[in-house]
């Protein structure tokens, strides 16, 4: 559908297409810092998380909005890596669910001290990742000033307002999910599937993407329409149809 006016040879003959999720995560060592796109169901790299569960790397630091598991049905999430004993620390915007009546599977691991967590406001989390990708080592933000999260930390008054110093959050690996990709790794997201995925991709040394639609040749995506440029993406894997591949499902509401 999109029209391309590119010309000449592809920028690289070396496709970034990887045949399986297992192969895509095989080299991830113990101790890695891994970021996960996704907000609620859309954009979560379910299949890569499943492969990482099977891969078994340990002492991981996970970065993402939430550890998951408050909603049913439950697809692979960061919390499962915790339950599987692979995780040292989680950096996220929720260590407990939004509604006090919900229980995140992760919470008990955190409360017992088995797994560490760093609780970060969602916008600060997104900005710290963006900063890491954009070479900004630190920045000031009004968020969390005057709260427990700012206790003992450096603040600065600028134009009469107090701001909190925050540092970039670089990743070793990012797992993302996109709708469309070409073999060079250019990505397009559909609707709110985008969320954290583009900033995770820029913050990581190695970005691995699982892709909904058949992966196309470089040149098939209009350069103006790319959400994440291929230079930020290192491996792309095609999500197979269900049940082999894991896809977003309709959420079961508890109250109707």
């Amino acid at each position: 559908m999109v029209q391309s006016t590119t010309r000449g040879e592809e920028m690289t003959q070396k496709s970034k297409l990887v045949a399986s999720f297992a192969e895509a995560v095989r080299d991830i060592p113990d101790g890695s810092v891994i970021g996960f796109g996704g907000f609620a169901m859309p954009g979560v790299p379910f299949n890569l998380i499943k492969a990482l569960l099977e891969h078994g790397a340990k002492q991981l630091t996970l970065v993402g909005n939430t550890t998951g598991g408050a909603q049913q049905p439950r697809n692979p999430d960061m919390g499962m890596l915790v339950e599987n004993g692979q995780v040292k620390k989680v950096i996220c915007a929720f260590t407990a669910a939004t509604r006090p009546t919900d229980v995140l599977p992760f919470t008990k691991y955190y409360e017992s001290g088995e797994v560490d967590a760093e609780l970060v406001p969602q916008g600060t989390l997104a900005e710290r990742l963006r900063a890491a990708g954009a070479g900004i080592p630190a920045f000031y933000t009004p968020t969390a000033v005057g709260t427990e999260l700012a206790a003992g930390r450096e603040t600065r008054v600028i134009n009469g307002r107090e701001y909190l110093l925050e540092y970039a959050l670089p990743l070793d690996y990012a797992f993302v999910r996109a709708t469309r990709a070409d073999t060079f790794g250019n990505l397009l997201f559909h609707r709110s599937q985008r969320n954290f995925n583009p900033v995770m991709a820029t913050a990581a040394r190695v970005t691995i993407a699982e892709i909904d639609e058949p992966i196309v040749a470089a040149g098939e995506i209009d350069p103006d329409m790319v959400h994440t440029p291929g230079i930020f993406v290192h491996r792309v894997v095609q999500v197979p149809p269900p049940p082999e591949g894991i896809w977003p499902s309709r959420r079961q509401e508890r109250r109707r």
Partner: protein
Amino acid sequence: MSDTKGLTRQQMADRAALEFQDGWIVNLGVGIPTLCSNTDIGDRDIIYHSENGVIGYGAIAPEGEEDLNLVNAGGQNVTLRPGAAVVHHADSFGVIRGGHIDATVMGAYQVSCGGDFANWKLKGQKGGGIGGAMDLAACAKRVFIILEHVTRDGSPRLVRACDLPVTARGVVTLISTNYGLFEPTGDGFRIREIAPGLTLEDVRAATGAPLVVPDNLPMVRLAR
């Protein structure tokens, strides 16, 4: 919901939503605030923003027509209105921190008369659930809080000082409860409107800081 006095949850949301002005960009938190989008506010156009980068979402998607890659901040499958745009999470919080949100509506455990509020951490809890609340609270032009006037055990939620960890300080501009509509004044709460079936003494007894009462106290307005 243990306290059934006064307004229903939808009415509390309605009263807050009636404050929205034409062309406002509004962010609705999970829980009661999401009900604001059901309120009939006539021909005023509101642009709903959600933290995950959706600018201009509309009604909940009809069953069977959901786009599973399109949710609001509460994870519900919504629709988009013509003119909508999608951005990534860092840009979405750029919209918030950049001061482009005219009003954010959130739930809370407590609000103080100094405009502080608490909604991310329970007493004695390790960690909590912040989400986008601290960003929204610190940066939106107006912070509206909707909450039950008292706790399940009858304690006031409108207090002199929050004893729960705060989400932000001095930011709340309007409070809609089942007992009425309030504004923090610094020393107390100005009651702007009172819920039907409640007396001023009922409200005073259930509020943890002095009430500032106007000469003529109207009932809560629920229709435009």
